[in-house]
């Protein structure tokens, strides 16, 4: 293969452009070798972007940057041979397409080249033609696609043109296990060319234009024709179905039960035929539901798991890979929130109690009192993150007839309460903002000296799904990083409290330069990232102080009400143990004889660890005798059992496992500690 000297692109672009233009009249195809930078090629073997959600995220970002108002992702689920991503954005000019083809992995955005080829605003290279702040890197989008499919087609059209541009891309296949070598490998040093400048052929592209009579139409469609086996198997949840299908009756006997798929899934197609459905889908919505309703039901189904299956459900145990992909995409894309309700637009009518974060080094959060003239945190603090006005952005993303929204709601959260009797269960919403000119950092630092962001931290008794625990950083409304549950390496041992926080940081200016090439992680050495980290950590300290104060107040009130004398000795022991462990809140535990499963669900919804007496005390014959003495004996025993559960929960050992298993565990303890007289 030939290694190309690099400074050619401009000439190469113009040559290609000339040829395409000269062939417009005949519709003849122009074939070119696909090239990419060494730097980008090196990522191929790193395996980044093999996640379908990453590639979809980048394509959706590109659509947003192209001023699209609607993106339609269609898959042939559950077969997943092909995926089409179609937007109604401005479409690509010949120049933009040529630039894209010649710079896969690079980006014309955020540079004046973008304006020259019609990708960005003519007055501001960091904005889309209509003025949206750019969120993607167009070449990265295509590069990520190349990781999912070796064959794909781009069809694009600009308004007021009578042709569509079509590019058929065929990538060379090389071993995915080893970095490209031999003929494909650059001999940069010997050739005397800097490594960053080297370019390599990685496939071919056929570009042609075809007549279009829909002159006004505009948009771009990218069709992935044959997904790479790895990507296809991932969307098919192959590793899950293989386990489900492999579980024989013998194995089920050995392991106690058969391996079951996540509760909600798209089903499985028989890999041998690809046309026969092997396992029928189980989706949380009905086929008659509208795209909005479908997403709402998906969200509600995940939340309901906290009452029905496990106290702290994870997405991976509830949804198959395909539904997880939808969920992840909805977190990453610049979309409206569920119910169009941005956290900054909540009011006193909503569940959370509001606090304002201080930017002072040793500052403390103060209660944010909302009034008629300052009804929302947005109004009170002058926040600007696009919110309920997100509607105005007018950016809708559909995946197979599901309309995505940010799957975050702020009312009726699991385990929370608005009751004044339980102030310790009311969600706390901390809001703050930061804006500064960074005089102290060098003038020439990538990303410049401007950094501004807004943020909220929601403390709630239980974050559901647990994947939402952490801080998610959005740059211009988009995020590739999702929730970081280490809170950017927060070192303070606050395990329980930290696990109760969901936070989002909305960056309006700066930080973009701190994103690594995979766009899914930050370079924390970058000055902007350092400032964000420090600010987040200060916020967490303020939240801890405030939440601790509220929890302690609530506990003191309860203790006084109950009266120290009346409290069982065992409860005192538990509280003392919890104090030592640094846990403020005594977990609520109940053992009941439910009239229906629903009764248990209701208790669990409130955040109570509710157990079915018949299961917890199973196989203890004495426990179910009904003499007065035995009832007293059982009651005392149950108190001890509840204390054991409280300790287990306080150390985070109980909530991770399904309710059914929790009950079996308690039953085991009961069988061990029951006094068999």
């Amino acid at each position: 293969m030939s290694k190309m000297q690099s400074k050619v692109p401009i000439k190469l672009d113009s040559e290609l452009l000339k040829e395409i233009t000269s062939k417009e009249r005949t519709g003849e195809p122009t074939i070119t070798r696909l090239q990419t930078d060494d730097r980008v090629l090196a990522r191929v073997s790193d395996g980044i972007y093999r996640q379908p959600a990453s590639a979809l995220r980048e394509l959706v970002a590109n659509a947003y940057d192209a001023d699209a108002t609607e993106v339609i992702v269609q898959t042939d689920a559950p077969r997943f041979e092909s995926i089409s991503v179609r937007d109604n954005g401005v479409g690509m000019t010949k120049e933009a397409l040529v630039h894209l083809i010649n710079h896969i992995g690079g980006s014309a955005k955020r540079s004046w080249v973008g304006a020259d080829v019609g990708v960005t605003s003519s007055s501001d290279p960091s904005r889309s033609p209509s003025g949206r702040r750019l969120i993607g890197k167009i070449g990265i989008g295509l590069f990520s696609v190349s990781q999912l499919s070796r064959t794909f087609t781009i069809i694009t059209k600009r308004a007021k043109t009578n042709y569509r541009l079509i590019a058929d891309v065929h990538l060379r296949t090389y071993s995915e296990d080893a970095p490209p070598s031999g003929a494909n490998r650059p001999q940069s040093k010997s050739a005397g060319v800097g490594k960053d400048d080297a370019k390599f052929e990685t496939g071919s592209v056929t570009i042609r234009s075809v007549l279009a009579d829909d002159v006004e139409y505009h948009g771009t469609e990218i069709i992935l024709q044959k997904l790479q086996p790895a990507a296809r198997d991932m969307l098919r949840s192959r590793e899950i179905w293989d386990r489900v299908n492999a579980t024989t009756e013998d194995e089920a006997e050995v392991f106690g039960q058969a391996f079951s798929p996540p509760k909600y899934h798209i089903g499985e197609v028989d890999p041998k035929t690809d046309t026969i459905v092997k396992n029928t889908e189980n989706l949380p919505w009905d086929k008659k539901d509208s795209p909005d309703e479908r997403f709402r039901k998906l969200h509600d189904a995940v939340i309901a798991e906290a009452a029905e299956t496990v106290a702290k459900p994870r997405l991976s145990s509830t949804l198959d890979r395909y539904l997880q992909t939808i969920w992840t995409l909805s977190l990453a894309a610049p979309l409206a929130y569920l119910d169009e309700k941005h956290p900054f637009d909540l009011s006193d009518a909503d569940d959370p109690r509001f606090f304002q974060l201080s930017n002072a080094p040793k500052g403390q959060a103060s209660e944010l009192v909302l009034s008629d003239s300052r009804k929302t945190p947005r109004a009170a603090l002058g926040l600007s993150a696009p919110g309920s006005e997100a509607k105005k952005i007018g950016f809708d993303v559909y995946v197979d007839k599901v309309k995505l929204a940010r799957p975050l709601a702020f009312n009726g959260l699991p385990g929370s309460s608005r009751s004044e009797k339980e102030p310790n269960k009311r969600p706390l919403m901390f809001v703050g903002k930061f804006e500064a000119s960074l005089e102290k950092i060098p003038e020439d630092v990538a990303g410049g000296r401007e950094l501004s962001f807004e943020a909220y931290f929601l403390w709630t008794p239980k974050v559901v799904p647990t994947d939402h625990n952490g801080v998610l950083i959005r740059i211009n409304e988009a995020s590739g990083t999702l929730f970081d549950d280490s809170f950017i390496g927060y070192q303070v041992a606050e395990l329980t409290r930290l696990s109760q926080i969901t936070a989002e940081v909305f960056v309006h200016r700066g930080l973009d330069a701190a994103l690594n090439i995979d766009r899914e992680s930050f370079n924390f050495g970058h000055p902007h990232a350092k400032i964000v980290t420090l600010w987040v950590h200060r916020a967490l300290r303020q939240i801890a102080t405030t939440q601790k104060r509220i929890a302690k107040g609530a506990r003191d009130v309860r203790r006084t009400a109950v009266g120290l004398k009346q409290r069982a000795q065992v409860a005192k022991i538990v509280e003392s143990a919890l104090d030592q462990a640094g846990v403020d809140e005594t977990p609520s535990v109940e053992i009941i004889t439910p009239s229906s499963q629903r009764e248990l669900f209701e208790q669990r919804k409130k955040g109570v660890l509710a157990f079915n007496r018949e299961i917890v005390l199973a196989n203890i014959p004495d426990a179910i005798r009904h003499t007065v003495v035995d009832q007293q004996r059982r009651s005392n025993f149950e108190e001890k059992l509840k204390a054991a559960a409280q300790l287990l929960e306080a150390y985070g050992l109980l909530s991770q496992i399904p309710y059914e298993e929790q009950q079996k565990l308690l039953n085991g303890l009961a069988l061990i500690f029951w006094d068999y007289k």
Partner: protein
Amino acid sequence: MELPAQGKPFRPWHLPRKHYVRIHQWCAEIKDLTRHLKAAGALNFRPLAYLSLPGDELLDIRTIHGVCDSQGVRLSYLGFNTTGDGARADESRISENEVKALPRVYAQGSMVLNDALENVANEKSLARRRVLENGSFDVINLDLCGSVANQPPLTVGSTLEAVRALLEIQRSRRVEPWLLFLTTRVDTEVLDREVRARLRALTKKNAHSSADFKVALQACLEMEVDRMLELRDEELSQSVFAKLFGVGFGKWLLGLVLHSSPKWRIFVTSAFGYRVDRAPLDMLSLGFRFELIREPASDPAGLTLGAGSSVVLDSEESLAAGMAVAMGGVVDVDEVLYSDGRAREKIMNQFARLLGQARYGVDAYVAWVDGEHRDRGLIP
């Protein structure tokens, strides 16, 4: 930018007569149905649901979109088209990109599957799952290149099995009327012998049991029914055979939906034909309209009068007689177009515009049609 047509070769289905069927059968009847559905409020919240075999160019969908546009309704489609990986797949992708850009097409609810319609009969197939996800359908258009019955009865994977599967899904899942269009080769060489015999037996039985049907059939075939029954299929004229097949096929459909609950009745709403190979009318395009029969609830205790006692259920014989009458009016499209230069020109111009959408050049089209017509001896 000036772009000329890009040299795509024209194919037999680009002849004006096919477009005549699209306009005068498909569009006309879909327009009637759409009006009915709109009046009943059925299309207030959903698009018109259309299942078809759209080929690589989606010409049917492009045409029907015109009706939807004029009626102010959205269109969602589910297509079956096995293209493989080559040039046909390329063409299909571009066509779908164009069609989804049409203003009334509900893009996110529409797709062409790279799958065979026949798979629908398999209860476990992905094809069937797609039909169930998107159905029921207001219009099912089975525009076959070959014959609907080229395989013996009881053959797994046959087109007839797919037709039956679709009917079953439609029958049990909807209440509104719907349309079935069937385009099929009709000659003794491509229709399976046993299927022909069984359809003929249905007609024969009906002719013996119902005088009305016999009269209607006689008028339809323009020959004595008893005489017809004496002859083998191969001995009948192509026109008689075609009409006889149409009636028999309609009776088969009736048998599928009239006797099991919920019951549906069927009307042949139109019949068009043209010559592909052997003789006039060796290709038929039939339109069937399905309507649910609303049976009155009975009161076995005899406590109420009810309002439904006056409902008269259609008998199979009377519905079949109606079918025979409709088949008698089969329109020979070749004859219409080649006896009427103005009609031909009108439909040709309409179609040329549509072909323009599909990237064909108008001038090249007119020249091609003239050549074809001369070759086929249709015009001097």
